[in-house]
C-alpha cells in the first residue's frame, strides 16, 4: 500500500506497478463464495467442463472486479475513490493460471466540481494473452487536504 497519491503525481502514459498472482482452485472458489456467487461453474469442475464447455472452473465477474479494485487502490492509497469501472472478459481465468495485472494512465482531468480524476486502462493477462480489459475512472486528491470520499450529491460525478 502506497501513501496517498495526488492528482499532480500522475501523468498520462504513466504505468502502474505490475501485480502477479498464481491462481488456484481455492482462489476461484473463495472468490465466488466471497461474492455470494453459488453458480456451479465457479466451484464444480465437472459442471464447468461438461456443461459449460470450459477447461476448468473459472473466476467469476464480481471477484474479478474485486481484484481490479485491489490493484488500483494498492496504487492510489485509501483516498483513491473508484468512480466507474467497465470491464470486458475476453477469456476465462482458471486454476494454475498466473494472473498479471498491468495498467496505464490514459487521462488526467479535473471536473467542473473540482474533483480530480485519473482514467486507467487495466489489463488482466495470462501468459501474455489478455483475459480482461478494464477501463477505470478513479478520483484522486488534488491536494493533501482534499478527500474525494467527502464528495456527495452534485459534487460527485462518476
Amino acid at each position, binding site marked *: 500500500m502506497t501513501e496517498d497519491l495526488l492528482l499532480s503525481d500522475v501523468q498520462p502514459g504513466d504505468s502502474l506497478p505490475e501485480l502477479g498472482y498464481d491462481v488456484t482452485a481455492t482462489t476461484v472458489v473463495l*472468490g465466488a463464495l*466471497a*461474492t455470494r456467487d453459488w453458480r456451479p461453474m465457479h466451484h464444480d469442475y465437472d459442471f464447468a467442463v461438461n456443461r459449460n464447455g470450459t477447461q476448468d472452473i473459472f473466476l467469476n465477474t464480481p471477484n474479478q*472486479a474485486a481484484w481490479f*479494485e485491489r490493484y488500483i*487502490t494498492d496504487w492510489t492509497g*485509501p*483516498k483513491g475513490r*473508484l468512480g*466507474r469501472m467497465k470491464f470486458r472478459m475476453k477469456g476465462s481465468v482458471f486454476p494454475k493460471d498466473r494472473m498479471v495485472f498491468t495498467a496505464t494512465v490514459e487521462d488526467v482531468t479535473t471536473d467542473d466540481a473540482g474533483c480530480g480524476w485519473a482514467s486507467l486502462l487495466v489489463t488482466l493477462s495470462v501468459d501474455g494473452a489478455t483475459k480482461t480489459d478494464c477501463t477505470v475512472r478513479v478520483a484522486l486528491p488534488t491536494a493533501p487536504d482534499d478527500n474525494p470520499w467527502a464528495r456527495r450529491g452534485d459534487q460527485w460525478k462518476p
Partner: protein
Amino acid sequence: MSDPTSPDAPVDLPPEVAAVIGAYQYQETGEFPAEQGYIWTSCSSVENGNPLFWDADVAAEITDGPIAPPTMLSVWFRPHHWAPGRTEQALPLQVHFDLKAAFDLPEAVMTDNTIVFHEPVRPGDVLTTRQVLRSVSGPKTTKLGSGRFWVIDVEYLNQRGDLVGVESYTGFGYRRNAS
C-alpha cells in the same frame, strides 16, 4: 468492439421480451444488511490490504466510519443459496434467466460489466435493487455457440433512498454448437 446488442437491422423479438425493454422489474430488498465480516472475507479473497477496510481509525478519518469496498455492490443483493420455506432456488439477475428461458438458451456467460459507484455502502445498510432490460441483439454465433447478447442494468439504492451504484451487464445466452 461495438456494443454487441446494437443490431445492424431491426431485431425481431418475441412480444413478451419487447414489452419489458426499458421497464423496471424485480424491485426487491436485500435479504441481509451489509456487514463487516463479509467485507473482510471479500478483502481476504483478493488480498486487499486497503486500511479503509481494516483500520477503524483510517475509516473514521477518510470515510466517516467503515464502508464496504465499492466493488462489493452486487454482494449485498445476492440471495441465500437456501432459505426456510423456499421451494425454488432464488436467482440473482432474474432478467438474465428470464431471457435464457424466453429464447431457450441453456448456457450463458457475462461478457461486459460496467459499474458506476455513488454513495458508499456501510455496514448495516440494506439495499434495494431493480433491474431493467436495455437491449437484446439478433441471433449471433461465437466460439461458444449460437445465441443472443443482451444488456441489463441493475440500480442499487440504500435504505435512505441514496443511489449507491448502477451495474450494467452484457450477457450472451447460447446453445453450444454441435461438434
